[in-house]
């Protein structure tokens, strides 16, 4: 019944829209409504519950892209540094930026037709906002109060997990976004070949009642867990419209004349020392290793110029000052320091063990490069690969595994606030802020000083920054993502006639299919 009504509304809207289409025949080509956008992602699991996301994780990066289809935020940030209204139409704050008020957009409905209330907004934000913030709902607005200034509250609300949703008693989340989850098809063996696994699929349908207007696409079909080479092949043969391109495949994709977009470098690859192996407590040892690292080779040779060397924790596009940090390779100095260390350290009695999650060849290659660099400075580093299961979860490290002295880790920047990002990174790495900077790093000079202190301690050694690479099929129009990586698929449309035939739809209903780690909003 509801479907029939939606169909009628869609048909009438389309007829009305097209009645004026010819009036602009001499202007830029107008968007087309309809079609299914086929997206392929590397990750094999997903979670549409922002409360579950782990800050800085690559899985949270993927989850945020999917969640942006079904949920809205209070505000968004455009490409020109201007905050735009979304579920909030007005906002104001006091001089100290401790008290904020957001007036909510009237008549917004969740995908099940129920109205959005200020209480929904408060509940959703309370579950994802960090810091000692007090939220309260009133008739048509919400207030946020903080004991200390939060001048970057809009940056926080426009990024990361700060979506507005309503949790139903069965833990399903409803959103007000441009799409809703229509079908979830879990990964399962093929009937014809039980040894092969059919990848998991998610199907999102256009929300006809979206406050921002119906999206141009009818649906988005997301296939999870597709390996990088398979994604590239599917893009080439017209079986996919949007795919992730692994850094080591970017050159090939461009040589094949595929359309490849890259974001600002939004993922950091870095080394973290762990005192589980006592030798790493020696600051001189850490300094010797830091001086041995050849970041330029890592970025330009191993990663084929698809990455940037990094000596900072926050990227330049986020902090504005990262270029001030330099960490040139100095092998002579590294050897000098090494020779001053006790002979049984780092290579004498036992090597420094570098732990790496084997989520891809890239991480292993980098770890091996670190070991080679260290060897040049007469330091011994042993790479220990940690097998990651096909579902994305890491197998537990066995008790027989020797203690690790270093970890190679990735950190995805998911906040538009450099303060929040630095704070989250410190917490994740269990690094304490300095006493004088125990208050939030509001001022950029405070942040710089704190970051410099952390880098000088050399408990974390940044290596390279990676952008996201996306392959885009020819029929995709209005591809206007944010440089920090948000895809904005609600504005994308497909050129008719250029599109490959739509992929078959998944047949499972949301009731009888569930991903191991996924939840979805449905009407």
């Amino acid at each position, binding site marked *: 019944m509801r479907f029939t009504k939606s169909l009628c509304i869609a048909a009438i809207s389309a007829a009305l829209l097209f009645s004026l289409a010819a009036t602009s025949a001499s202007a830029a080509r107008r968007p087309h409504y309809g079609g299914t956008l086929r997206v392929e992602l590397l990750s094999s699991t997903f979670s549409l519950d922002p409360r579950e996301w782990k800050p800085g994780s690559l899985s949270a990066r993927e989850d945020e892209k999917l969640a942006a289809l079904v949920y809205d935020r209070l505000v968004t940030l455009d490409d020109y540094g201007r905050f735009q209204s979304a579920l909030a139409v007005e906002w104001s704050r006091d001089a100290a930026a401790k008290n904020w008020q957001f007036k909510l957009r009237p008549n917004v409905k969740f995908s099940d037709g129920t109205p959005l209330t200020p209480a929904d907004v408060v509940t959703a934000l309370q579950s994802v906002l960090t810091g000692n913030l007090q939220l309260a709902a009133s008739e048509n607005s919400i207030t946020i109060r903080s004991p200390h200034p939060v001048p970057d509250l809009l940056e926080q609300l426009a990024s990361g997990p700060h979506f507005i949703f309503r949790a139903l008693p069965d833990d399903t989340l409803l959103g007000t976004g441009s799409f809703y989850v229509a079908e979830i098809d879990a990964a399962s063996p093929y009937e014809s070949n039980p040894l092969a696994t059919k990848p998991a699929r998610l199907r999102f349908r256009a929300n006809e009642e979206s406050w921002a207007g119906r999206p141009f696409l009818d649906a988005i079909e997301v296939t999870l867990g597709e390996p990088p080479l398979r994604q590239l092949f599917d893009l080439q043969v017209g079986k996919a419209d949007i795919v992730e391109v692994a850094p080591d495949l970017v050159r090939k994709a461009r040589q094949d004349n595929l359309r490849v977009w890259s974001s600002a470098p939004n993922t950091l690859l870095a080394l973290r020392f762990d005192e589980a192996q006592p030798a790493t407590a020696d600051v001189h040892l850490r300094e010797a290793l830091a001086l041995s690292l050849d970041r330029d080779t890592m970025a330009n040779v191993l990663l084929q110029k698809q990455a940037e060397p990094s000596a900072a924790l926050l990227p*330049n596009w986020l902090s504005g000052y990262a270029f001030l940090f330099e960490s040139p390779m100095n092998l002579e100095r590294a050897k000098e320091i090494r020779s001053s260390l006790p002979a049984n350290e780092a290579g004498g009695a036992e090597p420094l063990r570098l732990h790496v999650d084997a989520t891809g060849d890239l991480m292993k290659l980098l770890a091996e490069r670190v070991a080679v660099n260290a060897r040049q400075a007469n330091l011994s580093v042993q790479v220990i690969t940690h097998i990651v299961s096909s579902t994305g979860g890491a197998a537990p490290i066995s008790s027989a595994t020797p203690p690790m002295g270093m970890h190679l880790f990735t950190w995805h920047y998911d906040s538009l606030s450099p303060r929040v990002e630095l704070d989250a990174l410190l917490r994740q790495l269990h690094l304490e802020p300095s006493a004088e900077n125990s208050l939030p790093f509001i001022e950029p000079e405070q942040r710089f000083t704190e970051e410099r202190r952390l880098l000088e301690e050399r408990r974390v050694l940044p290596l390279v920054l990676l952008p996201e690479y996306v392959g885009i099929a020819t029929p995709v129009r209005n591809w206007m993502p944010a440089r920090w990586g948000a895809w904005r698929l609600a504005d994308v449309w497909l050129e008719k006639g250029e599109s490959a035939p739509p992929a078959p739809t998944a047949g499972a209903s949301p009731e009888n299919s569930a991903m191991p780690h996924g939840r979805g909003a449905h009407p």
Partner: protein
Amino acid sequence: MPRNSLSAACYHRYRIAVLPRSESYRSRPTLFFLILFLLCFVVSPRAFSADSNSLDDAVRQLADRIAAIPNLHGPLRLEFHADANLAADSTWQDSLRQELEKHRLPVTDESSAPLLKIGAVETPTQVVLSASTRIGDRDDVRIVTFTRATLSTPALAVAPIRIARQLIYESSDRILDASAFGNAAEGGLAVLLDRNAGLFALRLDPSGAVKQTVSLAAANLRATRDPRGELIDKGASAEVLLPGKICEFSWAAGEEPKCRAKKVEARTATVLTSPCDTSNWKLETKGEDWSSPDLLQIAPDSAARAGSAALFNEFPGPILSINGELDPGSALIVARNLRTGNYEVYKITLHCGN
């Protein structure tokens, strides 16, 4: 008199029209005081010590802070690390040199002079200016920021030969159509725009200031990601053509627009007449979508000019509407500037020769 002033003094401050918009308020005194109160509540980004509100101010502030670095003596050797956008404009770099010289910190190219690194980076919300110099064994760093949205737009490039192009209005609101104000004696412009999912017709004076705002809520349109509409100004009154509807209103009277269902006839391609030989020239675009700049093509549309090459004019973003003016030699073009995100109204005029 304005009939439908937007009662949102605190309407989020980041969404600003670049040209002055003097929307006068014909409101009751209580509303006036409420607005004053709200204005006091809203604070400009300058409230924070290291913030500044424009590139010029920020450069001055950075020079002041550099001059205050203990034990820093000139002359200094500058090394700039700027984002592409900021590197392209050397004006601020020259200003910084001048400001430093005012502080008795002259600038030199001598390689033996102390190095002062200057950074200028656009982050998602801010422009960060930084200065770093080595004093003893430590880098001394000073940072000044200002809101990126306040970066001004450089002057429009000179129009190419034979096509005069003039930017006459710009706004962060989505402009759907523009029409020359019908009352020739008053001059000015009427624009149709989408503001926060609502349609409004604005009457602007020749300086770009908003004289009147009319809400078209009466049209009761469904929200859409591709709002469309045409504005036809008739002097005292105006018509707005919307999908399946027409709305009429009088600028002078204080009543709501009256809307009724109507099949809208297509606006035909705009044709301009050359002032030189009365030949006709058709305006066309080849835009793919909203993500790339458009090229306006002015092609001969009459036998007198058959075989003539078309003229081209590149816009800073997609062209969204073309409207022939009362004057047959000019047209109004609405385009989105992809560099600034603003919607812009240009006047295109054909000229003889140069």
